[in-house]
């Protein structure tokens, strides 16, 4: 038998290898077609809006690893800032308190998702589909469909969450630092923490996990809460960055986020998840959106590129898995 070349072995045993290669290829292609793609200004711009979806994708990665997913994240992304800014603009509470209330409502939404899935045994597709429409409806109803203004607010908190500063001429957004922080925490949790072992076991073989005393239902419920919290936090970040809380914002995010997670190498059926892969998946799709505009492709064509990327990734992963049982689930 011939020895396996190192590259093939790396592809076979590391789920992050394929997305990493594609990210590098993508950067090379865009950089060669557009001289501006790698300019400090464009990278800074890219890193301004990447963390928002990235945060949702981190929560979604853990949730999918545990065998569930959440379609209501886009609605929560839109609803949480609407709650926060409406409460503030109406003079009900100070901005900081309004933010705590908005995040608490997101936690409650996640809890309800989790209880429906684990107690009533309704599939997460149906539960979170219902929640997606309910929450979006609430956002539209409470605002009558109008964006909430944000420019009257002055708060240190806004700078901490979504401010920016310069390193030389390079503008760094605070949200990027938060995203890196959340990434490190979840990376640690999935790799080294006991709860990470439970998350993977819950998605891999819930019957076996329960038989070992793993609290599968509690684990899943906490992940629904985490995902909703991160979606709300990302929505609030976004509203500060763009200076508006639009009740329609985040529409369609749920599927794009799931695409990012799956492209990164996390198994949609659960049991195996990779945070590094998700970060690569987020970068891949966000750079795609930015890059095709930079090279002059109409922005409306964006979905074609994303869709084709997903199809190519799935085909490559399936090919590798069939050739090598180490990657099989």
């Amino acid at each position, binding site marked *: 038998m011939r020895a396996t070349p190192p590259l093939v072995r790396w592809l076979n045993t590391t789920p992050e290898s394929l997305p990493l290669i594609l990210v590098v290829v993508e950067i090379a292609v865009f950089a060669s077609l557009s001289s501006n793609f790698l300019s400090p200004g464009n990278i800074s711009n890219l890193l301004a809006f990447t963390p928002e979806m990235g945060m949702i994708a981190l929560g979604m990665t853990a949730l999918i690893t545990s065998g569930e997913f959440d379609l209501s994240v886009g609605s929560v992304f839109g609803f949480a800032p609407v709650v926060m800014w409406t409460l503030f603009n109406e003079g009900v509470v100070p901005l900081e308190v309004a933010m705590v209330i908005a995040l608490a409502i997101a936690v409650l939404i996640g809890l309800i998702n989790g209880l429906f899935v684990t107690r009533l045994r309704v599939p997460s597709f149906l539960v979170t589909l219902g929640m997606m429409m309910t929450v979006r409806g609430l956002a539209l109803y409470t605002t009558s469909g109008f964006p909430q203004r944000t420019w009257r607010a002055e708060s240190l908190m806004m700078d901490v969450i979504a401010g920016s500063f310069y390193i030389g001429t390079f503008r760094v957004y605070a949200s990027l630092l938060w995203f890196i922080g959340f990434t490190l925490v979840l990376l640690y949790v999935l790799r080294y*923490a*006991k709860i990470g*072992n*439970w998350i993977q*076991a819950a998605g*891999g073989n819930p019957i076996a*996990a329960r038989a070992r005393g793993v609290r599968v239902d509690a684990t899943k419920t906490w992940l629904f809460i985490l995902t909703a919290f991160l979606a709300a936090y990302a929505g609030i970040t976004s509203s500060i960055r763009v200076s508006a809380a639009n009740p329609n914002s985040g529409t369609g995010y749920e599927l794009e986020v799931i695409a990012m997670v799956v492209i990164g190498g996390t198994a949609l059926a659960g049991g195996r998840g990779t945070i590094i892969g998700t970060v690569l998946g987020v970068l891949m799709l966000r750079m795609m959106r930015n890059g095709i505009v930079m090279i002059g492709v109409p922005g409306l064509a964006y979905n074609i590129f994303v869709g084709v990327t997903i199809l190519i990734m799935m085909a490559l992963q399936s090919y590798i898995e069939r050739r090598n049982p180490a990657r099989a*689930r």
Partner: protein
Amino acid sequence: MAEPLVRMRNVHKSFGPVQALAGVDFAVHEKEIVGLLGDNGAGKSTLIKILSGVVPATSGEIFVRGEKVSIRNTNDAIRFGIETIHQDSALVPQLSIARNLFLGREPLKGPAFLNRMDKDAMNRIAGELLVEVGITKKLAPDTPVSLLSGGERQAVSIARALFFDSDLIILDEPTNNLGVEETHGVLRFVRNARDSGHSSIFIAHNIHHVFQVVDRIVVLRNGEVVADDIDPASSTIDEVERIITGALAV
């Protein structure tokens, strides 16, 4: 004779109008491998489900080392030292051998809030256990279970039961779908477990496998124990088959 490790007395179980167990007396002694035989529907799986806490008995008593216990769920059973190993449902294929061995009881290190698994200890103990259970092939403890053969998976399950000091290991069809070599391996693991002081209940369709490993055979028919002291050394497979089908009265 000493008090049995586990004893069931006059256990009944009905599912609606169907009586699955009709007054069963059953015991497993220390360091004993009991073969549990019976045709489909004889009550074997109901009996082990009661012992492992999956379903409650309708009536009857269970004693562990002479003390009356009530087994309401799988955690109770594990607490009383009863570990059940099912063919397919025992392990998480995506997780490594070490992670499976310690699933639910992961050792931690460092400050509690970090919730950090002691991976070094897990891998070291897993490696030792694999040797103890009789796996001769070199298997890294961080190998995902999905890469293991059926026999190796059984070995991991048995190793886990040994490590957590289960007194009674219930093996439900452990040799199903295994090749000849692998079957011999599993039978060896069961004997090793007995030699290190553990008892087992061994359930298998293949009577040949049962004969090769057990100390005593118990036969169930129509929810009743029809023979509970068959010595495989002094009986033939043919006799036992006739007892199972009811052709031979005991």
